[in-house]
């Protein structure tokens, strides 16, 4: 368990209670002993016991000193100086914990018995047991009568006896736990459960290339509370972080099993090089950049994660140099502890369902038939100049009365209730100088879209050993295998979900024999055309799209103590990955309006492997001298990544029986891609603290990268931060209600090197041509940019940290201003250059924002309530673009852009027509309206933005919405009452809009597709003009009705109850009887319990997979829906 009691055996002979520490004579001489060894020696000599929690802080140094005929107090004071620990003696136990104030390093409390002449009537002895949340006894907890110095400590079984007066309040406290106060009543036996104080446990935070005490941190660094998110039924850790950290926007762009999320820290700072943070796993820069298909974080079993820290400001990210500009997420995996054994087993099973909210609402059978008939009517009148008759309609639409109800719900047809399960076994075992950790995990998630899913087998094996007392070595491997079954979604109207949304509700998926129809022919007439389509369920069933990936993370390191304060560490991190993608589309699958044809099966395959290695050598120096504390780090690292992908497309296959390439008639396309990059870096950091009050951090990193052009090969990233712990000042000591007040400020530079591997070189593309029968290579030269370089981000951060009321309330405020320069733009250029776009470094984007995180424990005790809330405001603004370009158009709807980025506005504004309704009879008489063929009564009316009297694509587009939220927020509540715990996570965003790209289809009145139910209110005639917004069926082609317009832009604000967990911890008494099992908790959890939003689509965070998330943000296209997951689980520890 958490607490490691150094005193392995309690020595029952106690020193005289009256003896003060000064009076305990001690002669001691140690040479190169560890801290624990020193404590052991003192323990033997004095009969005092030490309790010391390694979690809270450990000392790596070794000690050599000698005291002759001294006393215990002096020795401890000396040790306190060396270690920055404080010693607190209660009776015969001395508690060791990180010290805050150098003045009070050795403290004594008075002890039993209480003064007999106290004005309390009667003292009665009470008995108590102090246990932790899981019912394990806590030895060494302090029990003090409030307002006095009287008290005692618990014994090895967590028991204590104390004489108290009725009405007294006893306060029970222990390091790493929240103190608890109890008013003594008539009861004489108490069981007191202490709740872990995770804030205290996380006093050490992981930063780049090391750890720091929380109070020493000068930058904007946030840790994720592991406890609050440990049992969420999701596949990867980024999904767990939703709503947990201020200023971190985690967008679940797709609900597909294994799909990646988009993570943005402090807004979008880049236009062309991506906005995803860098993930660093156990020191290895792991990935940056988003992969919507397969989340790279899937390869990290969330059960194995020890801590997650998010580095937000430049002072903390500059140590990652050219990769730090978008923030850094530091992940450490669980390692063992010395002389301790932990065995854990956890298991979770659940079901996922798609909520009703957000499902498409389209015309029902009868409305659809009427719509089709209206369309045909127009066709008949136009082509034959007569009134339509019933016989003009396809048979299916003739009897409207027979058509009742919604008809086939194709969307529901492709969905299912799906299972999810996660099992993990882990063991950490430590001996005196070695430790080992091992885990095995299995995760399986079926998709709520039928025939999709993911399966993960993960493992992890680590060993660490102190070879001598100066040399430590260690190694870890983390092999993971993932198998993913995909379906095409988030792409376009013809993907599985696209079809299942617009498919004709009158057709049926099954034939008379109950078999799935492969292809649905829509009822046709000579005068209109509804699209025929592939049965989406049949496509899901028959199309194979499978990815298999194996990945291993490897780490080996050696750490040598050259001098007591000087350590050298050398490490090798590797990532090895092999993957295989197989896709087969059988000949039974047609396409929209293309019935299947025998002998057209096609396969596409790729095989890829990659190897990434990183060698880091660092030297770490610590100095504690008087008022000064210095920690210095220098390092040299080299990294190289190589990958190779071979892809093969083959078709046609004569039949679908054999689907391997050998059966294909020809290889239709093939390719091999090799991608290599390398990097050399020099880094350094100095942390300086003066009297623990004034803190200074200076960081630099210099990166040389193969990605940068010859002219700009090395980049330099410096940063500086300072902090002032106001609360440590003398004048602050009287303010009791505030425990901590720190002011932080930092400024620095970091970079973004996601610019592609060879972008600075002009490639010579090899095409081919034929002269007569002579096939030749035909080359062309691309554009080069030898000056191409990284993007730069300069960030200023001002932060305030507060802790109030015994740390029961904390407040963290950060203000930042981040300016990204030299932005990588894929600039649209005049095609008379021969090219239509070019990658350049130009343009600035500014993000300014405010982050507030509030933590509190309104109730502590038997009923415990922790609450954490955060809110973040970010304002994004394009400051400048390329000299020639005042705007960047992006996105694609019918060949026209959907988004624009302009100077002075946030990146990626929605761009399209302003819908003004429909042309009315008055408009038709209005001589000011130019009567182009598109101007007729009932047709869609867009605003003539440029005022030229004509409505034109692009020329009359304007900004019609903003995808960026005003603020994002998260709220986490944890309630504990006795053995029952309840967790609630809420997150959301306010402001910001989303564009539903499928509306090009479901707002398209040409009669090809089913349309949104709002179109019931369409214009039908002069007498029946509908709601004035929804136009009539188009009378001329091409139709204008389905252009991007204000109609498509919807509010994306939402509030989601993202998780509700109810847990029950089996009481310790039962555990005692079970012997083997130390702790056990069962829980039930609901993920995505409810979502409150005005958005009509499936997911206000949805994002088309084929649209750039930066320049075309908020473009939702046939989103794989997010499921609601209900699961139960058990955690056992042995």
């Amino acid at each position, binding site marked *: 368990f958490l607490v490691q009691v150094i005193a392995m055996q309690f020595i029952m002979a106690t020193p005289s209670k009256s003896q003060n520490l000064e009076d305990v004579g001690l002669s001691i001489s140690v040479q190169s002993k560890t801290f624990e060894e020193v404590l052991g020696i003192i323990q033997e000599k004095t009969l005092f016991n030490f309790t010391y929690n390694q979690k809270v802080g450990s000392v790596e140094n070794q000690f050599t000193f000698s005291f002759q005929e001294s006393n215990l107090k002096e020795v401890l004071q000396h040790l306190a100086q060396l270690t920055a620990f404080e010693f607190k003696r209660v009776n015969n136990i001395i508690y060791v914990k990180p010290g805050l104030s150098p003045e009070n390093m050795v403290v004594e409390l008075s002890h039993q018995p209480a003064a007999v002449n106290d004005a309390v009537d009667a003292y009665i002895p009470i008995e108590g047991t102090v246990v932790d949340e899981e019912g394990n006894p806590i030895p060494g907890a302090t029990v003090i009568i409030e307002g006095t110095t009287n008290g005692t400590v618990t014994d090895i079984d967590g028991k204590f006896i104390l004489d108290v007066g009725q009405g007294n309040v006893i306060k029970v406290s222990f390091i790493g736990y929240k103190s608890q106060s109890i008013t003594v009543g008539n009861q004489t036996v108490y069981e007191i459960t202490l709740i872990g104080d995770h804030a205290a446990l996380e006093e050490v935070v992981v930063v780049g290339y090391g750890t720091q005490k929380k109070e020493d941190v000068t930058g904007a660094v946030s840790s994720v509370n592991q406890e609050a998110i440990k049992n969420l039924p999701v596949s990867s850790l980024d999904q767990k972080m939703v709503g947990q950290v201020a200023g971190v926007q985690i967008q679940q762009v797709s609900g597909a099993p294994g799909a990646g999320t988009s993570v943005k820290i402090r807004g979008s700072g880049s236009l062309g090089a991506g906005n995803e943070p860098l993930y660093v796993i156990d020191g290895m820069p792991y990935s940056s950049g988003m992969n919507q298909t397969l989340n790279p974080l899937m390869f990290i079993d969330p059960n194995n994660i020890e801590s997650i820290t998010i580095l937000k400001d430049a002072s903390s990210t500059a140590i990652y140099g050219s990769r730090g500009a978008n923030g850094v997420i530091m992940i450490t995996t669980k390692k063992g502890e010395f002389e301790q054994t932990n065995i854990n087993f956890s298991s979770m099973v659940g079901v996922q369902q798609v909520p009703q909210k957000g499902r498409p609402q389209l015309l029902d059978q009868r409305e659809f038939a009427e719509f089709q008939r209206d369309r045909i009517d127009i066709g008949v009148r136009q082509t034959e100049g007569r009134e339509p008759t019933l016989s003009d309609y396809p048979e299916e639409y003739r009897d409207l009365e027979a058509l009742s109800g919604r008809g086939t719900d194709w969307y529901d047809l492709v969905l299912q209730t799906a299972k999810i399960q996660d099992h993990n076994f882990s063991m950490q075992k430590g001996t005196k100088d070695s430790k080992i950790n091992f885990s095995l995990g299995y995760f399986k998630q079926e998709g709520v879209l039928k025939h999709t899913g993911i399966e993960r087998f993960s493992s992890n094996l680590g060993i660490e050993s102190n070879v001598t007392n100066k040399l430590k070595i260690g190694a870890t491997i983390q092999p993971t295998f993932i198998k993913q079954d995909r379906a095409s979604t988030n792409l376009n109207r013809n993907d599985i979900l696209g079809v299942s949304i617009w498919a004709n509700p009158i057709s049926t998926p099954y034939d008379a024999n109950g078999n799935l129809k492969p292809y649905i022919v829509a009822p046709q007439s000579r005068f209109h055309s509804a699209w025929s389509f592939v049965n989406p369920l049949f496509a899901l069933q028959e199309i194979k799209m499978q990815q298999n990936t194996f990945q291993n993370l490897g780490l080996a390191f050696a750490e040598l103590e050259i001098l007591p304060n000087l350590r050298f560490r050398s490490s090798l991190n590797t990532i090895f990955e092999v993957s295989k993608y197989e896709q087969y589309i059988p000949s039974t699958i047609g396409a929209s309006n293309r019935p299947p044809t025998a002998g057209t099966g096609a396969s596409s395959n790729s095989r890829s492997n990659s190897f990434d290695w990183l060698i880091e050598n660092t030297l770490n120096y610590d100095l504690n001298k008087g008022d000064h504390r210095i920690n210095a780090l220098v390092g040299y690292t080299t990294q190289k990544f190589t990958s190779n992908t071979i892809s093969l497309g083959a078709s046609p296959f004569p039949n679908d029986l054999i689907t391997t390439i050998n059966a294909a008639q020809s290889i239709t396309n093939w390719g091999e891609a090799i991608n290599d990059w390398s990097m050399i870096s020099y880094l350094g950091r100095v942390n300086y603290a003066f009297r623990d009050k004034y803190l200074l951090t200076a960081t630099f990193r210099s990166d040389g990268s193969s990605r940068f052009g010859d002219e700009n090969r090395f980049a330099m990233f410096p940063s500086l931060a300072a902090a002032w712990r106001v609360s440590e000042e003398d004048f602050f000591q009287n303010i009791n209600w505030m425990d901590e007040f720190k002011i932080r400020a930092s400024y620095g530079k970091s970079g973004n090197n996601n610019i592609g591997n060879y972008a600075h070189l002009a490639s010579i593309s090899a095409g081919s041509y034929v*002269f007569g*029968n002579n096939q030749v290579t035909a080359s062309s030269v691309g554009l080069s940019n030898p000056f191409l370089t990284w993007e730069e981000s300069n960030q200023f951060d001002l932060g305030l940290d507060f802790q109030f009321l015994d740390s029961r309330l904390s407040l963290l405020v950060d203000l930042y201003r981040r300016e990204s320069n030299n932005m990588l733009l894929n600039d649209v250029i005049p095609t008379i250059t021969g090219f239509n776009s070019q990658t350049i470094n130009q343009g600035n984007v500014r993000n300014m924002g405010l982050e507030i995180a509030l933590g509190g424990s309104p109730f502590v005790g038997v009923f415990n309530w922790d609450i954490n809330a955060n809110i973040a405001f970010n304002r994004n603004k394009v400051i400048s673009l390329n000299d*020639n370009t005042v705007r960047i158009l992006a996105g694609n709807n019918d060949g*026209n852009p959907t988004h624009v980025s302009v100077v002075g506005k946030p990146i990626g504004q929605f761009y399209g027509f302003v819908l003004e309704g429909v042309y009315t009879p008055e408009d038709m008489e209005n001589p000011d309206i130019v009567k182009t063929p598109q101007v007729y009564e009932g047709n869609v009316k867009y605003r003539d933005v440029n005022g030229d009297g004509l409505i034109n694509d*692009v020329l009359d587009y304007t900004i019609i919405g903003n995808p960026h939220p005003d603020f994002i927020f998260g709220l986490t509540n944890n309630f504990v009452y006795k053995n029952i715990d309840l967790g609630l996570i809420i997150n959301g965003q306010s402001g910001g809009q989303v564009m539903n790209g499928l509306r090009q289809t479901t707002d398209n009145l040409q009669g090809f597709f089913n349309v949104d139910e709002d179109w019931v209110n369409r214009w039908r005639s002069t007498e029946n003009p509908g709601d004035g917004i929804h136009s009539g069926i188009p009378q001329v082609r091409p139709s204008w009705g389905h252009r991007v317009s204000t109609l498509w832009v919807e509010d994306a604000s939402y509030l989601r109850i993202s998780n509700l967990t109810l847990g029950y911890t089996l009481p310790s008494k039962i555990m005692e009887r079970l012997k083997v099992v130390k702790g056990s908790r069962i829980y039930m959890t609901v993920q995505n319990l409810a979502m409150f939003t005005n958005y009509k689509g499936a997911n206000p965070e949805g994002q088309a997979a084929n649209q750039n998330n930066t320049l075309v943000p908020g473009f939702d296209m046939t989103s794989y829906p997010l499921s609601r997951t209900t699961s139960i689980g058990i955690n056992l520890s042995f």
Partner: protein
Amino acid sequence: CSEDFLEIFPETTLNEGNFYQTQEEFILLANGCYVPMRDYEKDLHWVLAELISDNTSFQYNIRTGEAVRGVIDQFIITSDNRGYAQFWDGSYNGITRCNKLLAEIDREGVTWTDQAYKERSTAEALFLRGLYYFNLVRQFGGVTLVTTPITAQEAVNIDRATEEQVYQQIINDLESAVNHFSNATSVDEDGRANKYAAQALLGKVQLTLKNYGAAESSLKAVIDANQYSLLPNYADLYDPSNPDFTETLFSIQYSENNRELSNRFIFMFAPWSSEGEITNRPNISMVSAGWNIPTRDLIMAFEEGDNRKAVSINTWTGPDWDGEIRELSYIGKFKPPVSAPDDRCGDNMPVLRYSDVLLMYAEALNAQGRTGEAIPFVEMVRNRAGLTEPLQGYNQESLQDLILKERQVEFCFENQRWYDLKRTGKALEVMAAHGQREKEMKSFLFDASFDVANYKLLAPIPAEQILINRLEQNSGY
């Protein structure tokens, strides 16, 4: 060591860092100059030069959008039509390739084992640049004139040149090409541009400019060289298994070997309702086919006994767009694949043929009042088509009309008709009459169809380039 460690070149492609050193590399670049033209001839140029004219139309298809092609056939021409944008982009991509080669070929230190290759490569780039610009200027009028590799910043500051300036550049390029080709006859290769192609093209340019004397001399040089002749059998021009280089001076080369090298002509030009019956490839979808369907106007233009009709126009009987069984015409010049199992076709697209040279020569002579001298050259072409009666009683005007009609049937589907109509000043008259007939026959045409107006003789500068390149639009759009 660190510099080496950071110096990584792509392994799967060549790059500029170590290029431009040998003869071989320049030949590769010259080959590359042909590629954009091959690509736009596949699915674009015929829309802008044949479908737009009175020669062809399309089979109505309610399912597919008429967005790009259908509207052009109906003479609805707008600046946001993707077809014009793609044609513009492809043309300048080709011009840039030519410019790059011409800018680098005189580098010091390049090893040329045979100077003739240097001459040929230079000439090819000049010829192709001339042809790219000739197509551009005939479509758009005065375009931006780019003759060296330029940066994006430079591009923004380039305005449109006048038509005269563009033509002058074309003439310079072609004259220079003729000179360079003259020194490279030892390395001629079937399918490449050569001296005679350059001379013939120059003749066509001069004819377009109505410089009849210059046209005459340029074309005469081709005829006098005696390198080319009419094939006895018109059908042999269109045999994909035996590509012609006897009559064909220059054609865009295709091959069934792979997707990049092949075209899909028959898969676009056969009626879509014919499914695989014409293409013999039932597993290839025809959903977006039915383009360049010969119009009644074209079919009627063939005289009785003209054996080119049967070669050029095939018929197929089957369901039409509305399910009615009809006899449908379609292009016969382009054939189903010979051996490719899918939709890869290898028929070449002729650009300059000897019969073209003869008819242009006749046109140049006739325009100078030498009608009598011109008639034998027209007869040569007609005779081969089986129209052996001597031409009698023609004056300058009626011969001009005959030549235009002769060209209509001789070069149908070879992307000449629209340019011929424009060159001869007949475009408005012909299109108006054609539109009238089309509207009478086809109820499904757009209301705005065949609004024939003078400004439409010049294509609109693509809207996107107006924004990005800040170019001036042609009037009327």
